[in-house]
């Protein structure tokens, strides 16, 4: 038997809301599945424990219940319609009291208060066109006159400015040329003075330098001669000293030879005898 009740069927069975064949099938399935039976017993115990959670005592507050039926005059659409009607009535009465008039004549709607004012005679299109034309001509003439006067005034101003500027430029050129001649003369004179001073300084420096050079040369030559004499003297002394030593050496050697000869002659004579 492959029947297995789903969770909805099982819970409905547990709460006793399963009838007929379905209930029998579940009971048969539970007979074959004791572990599922135990699960349902656990549910029963769980529900028994949670059943200890009782109700709280509470007293219903007094609520004043009003009339539930709304009268015809309190219905929304009736009140809306009445509001519009009352507004229209107020407008009509106010218009009547203020003498409001509305006149539609010859495609024209006129709204106003009191008697309508008489309509004044109006100008024809030709008259309006002629007025506009005349006004334009007058305006053009005035503009032309203004432009001519402004142009003349402008040309006079330009001419005056040109003359004035030319005079100023000539004066400036003259001033510049005069200033340049004076500057050149002053520069040349200053240059000549500088050259003269430079040559004088050079000559002075040259004479003094030659003098110092000759003096230095003489001093150096004097020092050279003195040094040369000192070295010659030393050389001479050294030569003399060597000569003396050689002489003494020669003297000693001669004495030794003579001594030796004398000694040799004495020993030969004794053997002859």
């Amino acid at each position, binding site marked *: 038997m492959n029947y297995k009740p789903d969770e909805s069927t099982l819970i*409905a069975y547990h*709460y006793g809301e399963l009838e007929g064949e379905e209930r029998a099938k579940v009971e048969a399935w539970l007979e074959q599945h004791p572990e599922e039976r135990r699960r349902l017993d656990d549910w029963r115990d769980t529900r028994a424990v949670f059943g200890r959670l009782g109700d*709280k005592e509470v007293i219903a507050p007094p609520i004043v219940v009003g009339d539930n039926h709304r009268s015809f005059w309190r219905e929304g659409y009736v009140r809306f319609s009445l509001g519009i009607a009352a507004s229209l009535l107020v407008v009509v009465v106010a218009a009547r009291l203020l003498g409001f008039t509305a006149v539609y004549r010859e495609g024209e709607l006129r709204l106003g208060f009191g008697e309508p004012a008489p309509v004044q005679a109006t100008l024809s299109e030709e008259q309006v066109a002629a007025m506009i034309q005349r006004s334009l001509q007058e305006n053009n003439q005035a503009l032309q006159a203004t432009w001519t006067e402004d142009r003349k005034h402008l040309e006079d101003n330009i001419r005056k400015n040109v003359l004035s500027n030319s005079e100023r430029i000539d004066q400036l050129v003259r001033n510049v040329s005069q200033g340049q001649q004076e500057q050149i003369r002053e520069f040349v004179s200053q240059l000549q003075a500088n050259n003269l001073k430079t040559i004088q300084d050079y000559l002075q420096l040259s004479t003094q330098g030659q003098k110092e050079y000759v003096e230095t040369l003489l001093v150096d030559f004097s020092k050279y001669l003195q040094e040369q004499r000192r070295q010659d003297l030393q050389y001479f002394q050294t030569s003399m000293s060597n000569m003396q030593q050689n002489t003494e050496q020669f003297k000693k050697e001669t004495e030794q030879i003579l001594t030796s000869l004398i000694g040799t002659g004495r020993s030969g004579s004794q053997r002859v005898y």
Partner: protein
Amino acid sequence: MMHAEDLVTRAREGDAVAQGKLMQAWYKRIYNFGYKFFFDHDLAMEVAQKTFIAMHRHIAYLQEASRFRPWLYTIAVNCCREELRKRKNSRAVSLHDLRPGNDEEDSRTWEVAAHRDDNPERTLRQAELADILQGCLMQLSDEQREVVIMKEYEGMKFREIAEALNLSENTVKSRMYYGLEAMKRMLERKKITRETIGYEL
């Protein structure tokens, strides 16, 4: 159970007395539904009052008097969900949550339980158990809690619950199935059994 169809019929026709009687008959049930849903006296009172104000306004549109109970619970559930949304948005703390401990004299639990039993120790244990069980209910999801309360404490048929919640019967049964399994596991974790309760109480 507490209402007769003719009372509902008269209330639908605008009978203020019949509407008042309906409210008196159902106020405790709706209050307790709200209390078990929120575990909060103030919110339960709010839900009950809003439910009966809505009942007064709309009962004329109730099609069949025999469907008064699921219709009334539909209103109550909608009020609960509205309060739930408000509470989630505002994160307000009810004064009832800040009530004194159960061992203090002005405890509501003590007051309510005192009417039932004269044995103080038993009364205290009863109140503690009620708080534990209510806490377990609060651990269920909102959808499971609605179904569990309607089934276990309001005694409604699955068909009525489905009608009240505008769901299919299978969906309601499925929520009840998983809710009951969750409740069983919670009791196992807390080592609370039918026998231990009977022994202690």
